[in-house]
């Protein structure tokens, strides 16, 4: 049921923690620490889920989200955004930009895992309706 996740986070320790948690769940985690070429990394990886930090060196998580949504292929890609800035207007902006779930640091591990599971389930449900038959292949992979 799990797949590939791209994690864009410049804080090495936080990235390490999330990588650890998600790998245990069976996700294949690709960590990237810079905003600049995050989009290329995502395009190359074609992940099932993207986790974005809001404040990144080079390019902000908000911009990356917009660029992702501009691409047809990634229209339904679940995006989980993490931020240390807990302001309401950030959440609203993120939702307008196309972020699927918004989460404020510091979070508990359970919260992250639950969010990732939820997003994955929603995505699979959507895909199940739209492109039936792809799931078994994925599961097998």
């Amino acid at each position, binding site marked *: 049921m799990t797949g590939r996740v791209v994690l864009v986070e410049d804080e090495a320790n936080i990235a390490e923690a999330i990588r650890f948690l998600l790998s245990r769940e069976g996700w294949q985690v690709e960590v990237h620490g810079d905003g600049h070429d995050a989009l290329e990394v995502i395009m190359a990886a074609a992940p099932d889920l993207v986790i974005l930090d809001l404040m990144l060196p080079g390019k902000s998580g908000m911009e990356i989200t917009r660029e992702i949504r501009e691409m047809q292929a990634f229209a339904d890609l679940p995006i989980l955004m993490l931020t*240390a800035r807990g302001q309401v207007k950030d959440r609203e902006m993120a939702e307008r930009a196309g972020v699927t779930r918004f989460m*404020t640091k510091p979070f508990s591990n359970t919260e992250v895992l639950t969010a990732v599971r939820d997003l994955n389930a929603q995505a699979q449900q959507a895909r199940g309706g739209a492109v039936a038959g792809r799931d078994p292949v994925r599961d097998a992979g």
Partner: protein
Amino acid sequence: MTSLNLLALVSIGYVAILFSVAFWADRMALRGRGAWFMGSPLIYTLSLSIYCTAWTFYGAVGYAARSGMEYVTIYLGPTLVMIGWWWGLRKLVRVGRSQRISSIADLLSARYGKSNVLAISVTVLAVVGVTPYIALQLQSITLSVSIFAEADPTRSYNEAGTVFWIATGLACFAILFGTRNLNANERHHGVVMAVAMEAVVKLVALLAVGIFVVWGLAGGVDAALTRIDQSPIGQWQVQGGRWVAITFVAAAAFVCLPRMFQVMVVENEDERHLRTAAWAFPLYLLLISIFVVPIAALGLELLPEGANPDLFVLTLPLSQGQNGLAMLSFLGGFSSATSMVIVAAMSLSTMVSNHIVMPIWLRSTGAFGGASVSGDVRTVVLMARRFSIAAVMALGYAYYQISGGGAALAAIGLISFSGISQILPALVGGLFWRGATRAGALAGLAVGFGLWAYTLLLPEVAGGLFSTQMLEHGPFGLSWLRPQALFGVEGLDPIVHCVLWSMSLNVAAFCIVSVISFPSPLERLQGVQFVHVFDHSAGPGGWTGSVAQSEDLMVMSQRILGPEEAQAFFQRALDRQGGPGPLPEPTPEFLEQLERELSSSIGAAAAHAMIGQIVSGAAVSVEDLLAVADESAQLLEYSSRLEAQSQELSRTARKLRETNQKLTQLSEQKDAFLSQVSHELRTPMTSVRAFSEILRDQPDLSDADQRKYASIIHDEALRLTRLLNDLLDLSVLESGEVTLNQSRRGLSEVLDHALASALAGADRKLLVHRDATAEAMIELDTDVDRLAQVFINLIANAQKYCDADRPELRIDVSQAVDALHIDLRDNGTGIPAEFQGVIFEKFSRVTPERAGGAGLGLAICREIMHRLGGDVAYLPGASGAAFRVTLPYMAKIEEIR
């Protein structure tokens, strides 16, 4: 022989008639009737006859008996004034009316800038000059009564008692008819009528005696002339000096005497009356003086040697058994005395109460201003007048008692005249010379009155005051100061001597002081008002209203109120009046309403002045002008205050706007800062929480992982601590609450300490180059710990961010004129140009997060250096990252001092 009882009866009867005439005239005036009679020029002319007092009635005959034709000068003066100077009198009357003058003191005071000092001076001088004259009248009555007493041995005659009761009666009359009410114009119809009646009585009496003497005793005109030639009167030589002097003094007194001013100016109804009086009054004087010489001549001839010539008018008929004629003659003398005393007391009391009593009362009660129109003050004024009359009469009575009635009547009269005439220069100067000033008037009056008192009054009247020796050799033996031969001018008649010196020096002092002194604005204004009174005041008859005035009022009202409102107001007034229209009559009620209406638009003073100008054509009085000016000044001040307030308001508003902007900015900065702080705190906490949960929830972790994660938690906790320390440090530095601990230490020592701290436990080697020689020369006197903190920060940054393969740091020391420079350069690529401007801002970061700094270090460095009086700056253009720490010599210099 007429008994004293009959005399008393007749006198009382006469006084009763006098009272009823006065009473009747007042009643008629109050009802507005009888104006054709009371307001006629004839009455005015007759009232002027109070000039002819008992001195004239009895004294002129005595004068003629003693000095021949010289008595004529007493009549010549006024005659010349009336005929030759009527235009001057007209001006006086016009000024008196337009300025609402109540007395001669008031006139001078008004002319010279409403000077109270001047008013008081004139009042005092008038009282001094007139009191002997009142005494003189009382004396004449006593003397005349005593004639009858001599002839009536059946009764003992109490002279003192008679005088006392006469004085009391006259005071009562003056109080009754002189102070019944306070008229704005100060006119007293009752008194004027009584005076006019007495004028007729005394003229008739003297004519009757004269006719009896000429035709009854002398036997016709020719016989009378022959007998005159034979008498001593025919042989009197005319003394030119005395004639001129006395004529002049009589003329001056005619204008300046308070009682003359009262009847001539204050009681004047219409200045056209002067035209009649100009010929009628000289005629009256001619008639009253025509029989003086025959009476004197026949008195000298027929009456026994030693008979008082002052009483020939009485004694001649008595000696011929003409009791009825003698009685008439007595009444004539009585009339002369009473009318003079009444009017003199009235006019003096007006001056005393207005210029002495009222100012004192007002000052003592603090009632100046507000209460001036209240009934309360009116009562006080009336009371003051009444007491003043009583006081003036008491003074006259006292003077009579003290002087003992010794001196000849004519002498006292002339002394009094020459004293009063000292007012003339200031009066005439005030009317015709704009340059006359208050100081000049005061100087002239003081000099004139002083000389008069010194040369005439004291030697003649109060002779006992000056010893014979002083009169002959002068005070302190200074012969040129002899009272009757001043400056060595000898051989002159005392009167001539006095008039010559007092008048010439009076005029000189008045003119000189006026020229050298400077008039106040009010004096200037009043000077113009007086001198040019005909240019801007109404002629006679200007007070009656006409429809033409209504049109003028309409035009003016439209200009002030606006056309519709003015028309509506006039229409309402017309409806109320019920007149034929088209405009309402300018009745007093209407004018009052209009003034109220206008005053709400343009202020009370301006409204009053404008209506006054149209209705009366009267000059805008100085009070009006000043009131208008006051109002405008108040308005001006009010508007400038408003303007200042509005400026103040807009200034305050601008300040508030600026403050608000600043606050908004600060609030935004604070939000941004809090948001930054929040971010910086949340980030390490996220790691701490995540790894501590992993350690708690994952029992199957390898030992290596456990250690690794624990050390991450430890590092992040340290990071949090550092961040909190930095924040606190920064907050302390920024708020200025930091305390600096100044101490003395060598630069090299400080740098040693900083390098050791910054590089302790560093995983990467940083090669440091230092200039030991230069460092050794520098001794610092500052907060060395804080300075070391700056160095530690900069060195640690170099250690962390220098991207060279073999990182090196070079520390150079150089001395500028007023500061010490310590430069720290590394051999890396340096800070990109776009960041150089912001690196000292809080939370600014150039490199990615990994180095673990919160971006507060350089901000703290800069704050510290500012506190130490120096600075830290990035040095662009160096090969690597280069910072210059600047320290001023200030501390050192202070210590040397």
